């Protein structure tokens, strides 16, 4: 892809969607974008949060304990819906008690400040209690997606120096038991049920037993803003997954962005459909709604169109934050289905994960009478950076404008500096560093962290352009990272696992465009001599990869190739594989090995 080229604004074919004041059910928090941007400071945003009584800042205090002390003690914080119709309401008062119990459990087991507590679980109440209890204890919370296979789990827990794992007995048996002895730093496993036979009772516990013995009194560890709080893994083109480190100060951004980009008001009932295994499900599926003292809905089940509409209807959800893949699945089911439900409580719909196509934005208007507001951010940014705000007209297909306190630009790297490009020019999206939820490093990878910055700019790796009115438009990734159903997947991680199959000689992995998921993971495989391509072998390799990587990371498609294109230095050219897959011109092949 060429940078710096002027690109016609193709998506401008979609008419702008105005936001007449008469359509506002509540005055938006960000009513006047320009004037708020002028006056906003992060220091003032920090002052809106009380902080710990004796000084210091702890995410769990801002999210839970300060509300539990006040008149929100009996308000429902988490309204949980189980997969089989179970219900559980947890008030702020109860959430304080349960998270304090969990913090006491950790303390009693010798888990302290800075120790990494990992979770591998679906969206069950224990996950939310463990997350906030870990933060109270001054430990570091690291959630993993339950659809990860043993390989991604092992990688992440090893890189993150996991001391504790909280998981379910089923997931433990399926994904952890066989690799546990490869993680010498992992001291304790806490299960949300009876430990399976044969587990050492000195290192494997039943959470319920521990919780029953623990006190509900706990003095939150007096963390400072710069103390490590969260570890979220993300993927690059090469190398291992990267553990993006976030600190307690990030809560200032979680809170402010919830107010501006999701328009949280005190009366809101909020549903973020993301799993906490991905950062959206932590920043906005746990922290931000709770710092605002809202009631948040958690649905344990995976996507199902009818079920989701029922959740929106029955819970009287007012603000709904979801993902383009889900929107496209709902579009497939049709706007008629939406109209069969009473969604009258809904007043704002947001979307994040990958760019929401203009059709999706406009479809929201047809199905719910509300356009869908796309926004943009990354694991590294910790919170929403660029958004379509309730008060602002929508240009369908655009990610919107930077939040107050965020300065964005389109730049071109030139050696040790960057050049800011003009409106309409395509380049790399960059953010001026220094916002509270900016990642503070990749754990153990100082060099990779440094490479993300040029001068005062954080370079996002996303290619974009900005129009003359300051709306940003996503163009593509600057690297080979795959974005499937809103989740970043590193091709190298997939290739490494597929390579372990005895028949595989070489493998190249790309993101293949998909109408629902944005991209799906596709692997091209060439076989060692003595192996012949066959449907049976294709399925065997697919099953092999799924077993190691889990469904969230494994390829959805595998194709055989005689040989894979490589550069002269031996790197597999994923871009060329992708061009061939798409039937696009293959471009400059001069660095290819052998006759092109």
């Amino acid at each position: 892809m060429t940078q710096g080229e002027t690109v016609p604004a193709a998506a401008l074919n979609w008419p702008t969607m105005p936001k007449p004041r008469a359509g506002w059910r509540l005055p938006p928090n960000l009513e006047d974008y320009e004037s708020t941007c002028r006056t906003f400071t992060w220091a003032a945003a920090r002052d809106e949060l009380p902080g710990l009584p004796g000084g210091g800042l702890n995410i769990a205090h801002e999210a839970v304990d300060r509300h539990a002390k006040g008149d929100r003690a009996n308000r429902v914080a988490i309204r949980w819906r189980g997969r089989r119709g179970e219900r559980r309401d947890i008030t702020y008062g109860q959430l304080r008690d349960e998270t304090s119990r969990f913090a006491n459990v950790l303390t009693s087991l010798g888990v302290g400040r800075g120790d990494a507590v990992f979770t591998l679980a679906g969206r069950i109440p224990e996950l939310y209690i463990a997350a906030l209890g870990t933060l109270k204890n001054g430990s570091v919370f690291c959630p993993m997606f339950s659809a990860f296979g043993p390989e991604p789990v092992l990688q992440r827990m090893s890189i993150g120096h996991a001391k504790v794992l909280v998981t379910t007995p089923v997931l433990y048996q399926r994904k952890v038991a066989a690799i546990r002895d490869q993680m010498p730093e992992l001291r304790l496993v806490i299960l949300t049920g009876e430990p399976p036979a044969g587990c050492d009772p000195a290192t494997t516990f039943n959470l319920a037993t521990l919780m029953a013995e623990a006190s509900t009194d706990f003095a939150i560890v007096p963390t400072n803003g710069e103390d490590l709080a969260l570890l979220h893994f993300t993927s690059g083109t090469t190398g291992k997954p990267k553990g993006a480190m976030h600190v307690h100060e990030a809560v200032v951004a979680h809170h402010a962005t919830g107010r501006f980009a999701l328009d949280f008001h005190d009366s809101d009932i909020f549903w973020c459909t993301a799993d906490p295994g991905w950062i959206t499900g932590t920043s906005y599926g746990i922290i931000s709604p709770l710092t605002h003292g809202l009631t948040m809905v958690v649905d344990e089940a995976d996507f199902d169109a009818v079920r989701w509409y029922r959740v929106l209807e029955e819970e009287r959800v007012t603000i709904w934050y979801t993902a383009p893949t889900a929107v496209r699945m709902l579009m497939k089911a049709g706007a008629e289905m939406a109209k069969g439900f009473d969604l009258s409580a809904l007043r704002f719909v947001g979307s994040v994960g990958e760019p929401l196509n203009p059709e999706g934005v406009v479809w929201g208007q047809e199905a719910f009478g509300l356009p869908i507001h796309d926004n943009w951010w990354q694991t590294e940014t910790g919170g929403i950076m660029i958004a379509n705000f309730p008060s602002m007209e929508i240009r369908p297909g655009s990610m919107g404008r930077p939040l107050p306190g965020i300065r964005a630009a389109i730049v071109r790297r030139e050696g040790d500096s960057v050049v800011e490009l003009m409106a309409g020019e395509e380049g790399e999206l960059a953010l001026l560093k220094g916002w509270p939820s900016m990642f503070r490093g990749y754990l153990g990878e100082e060099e990779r962290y440094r490479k993300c910055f040029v001068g005062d700019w954080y370079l996002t790796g996303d290619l974009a352009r900005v129009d003359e009115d300051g709306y940003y438009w996503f163009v593509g990734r600057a690297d080979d990272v795959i974005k499937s159903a809103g989740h970043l997947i590193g091709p190298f991680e997939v290739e490494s696992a597929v390579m372990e199959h005895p028949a595989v000689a070489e493998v190249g992995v790309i993101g293949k465009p998909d109408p629902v998921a944005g991209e799906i993971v596709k692997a091209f495989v060439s076989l060692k001599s003595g192996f012949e391509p066959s449907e049976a072998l294709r399925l065997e390799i697919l099953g092999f990869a799924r077993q190691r990587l889990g469904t969230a990371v494994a390829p959805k498609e595998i194709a055989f190739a005689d040989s894979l294109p490589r550069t002269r230095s031996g790197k597999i050219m994923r871009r060329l594989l992708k061009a061939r897959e798409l039937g696009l011109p293959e471009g400059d092949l001069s660095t290819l090995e052998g006759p092109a």
Partner: protein
Amino acid sequence: MNADEARATVLAVLATIAPEANLSELELDVEFRDQLDIDSMDFLNFIIGVHERTGIDIPEEDYPALETLAGCINYLVAARPAG
């Protein structure tokens, strides 16, 4: 389609989506997602696969009926191919 044909069709499609699974142990009344590692995309591909093999149209609101082996068999036995 009779029940045996329906079962064979379902298992054949599942074998292409989750080849790692031991389908001979699949329980009739337990949701696929509790027995197999499949995500939403896999489930969607499963529905598409069943449609392609049987010609039966499966609207979104019927998807929950296909979340177990028994549910699939009942659904396919009762359904008629489109057209």
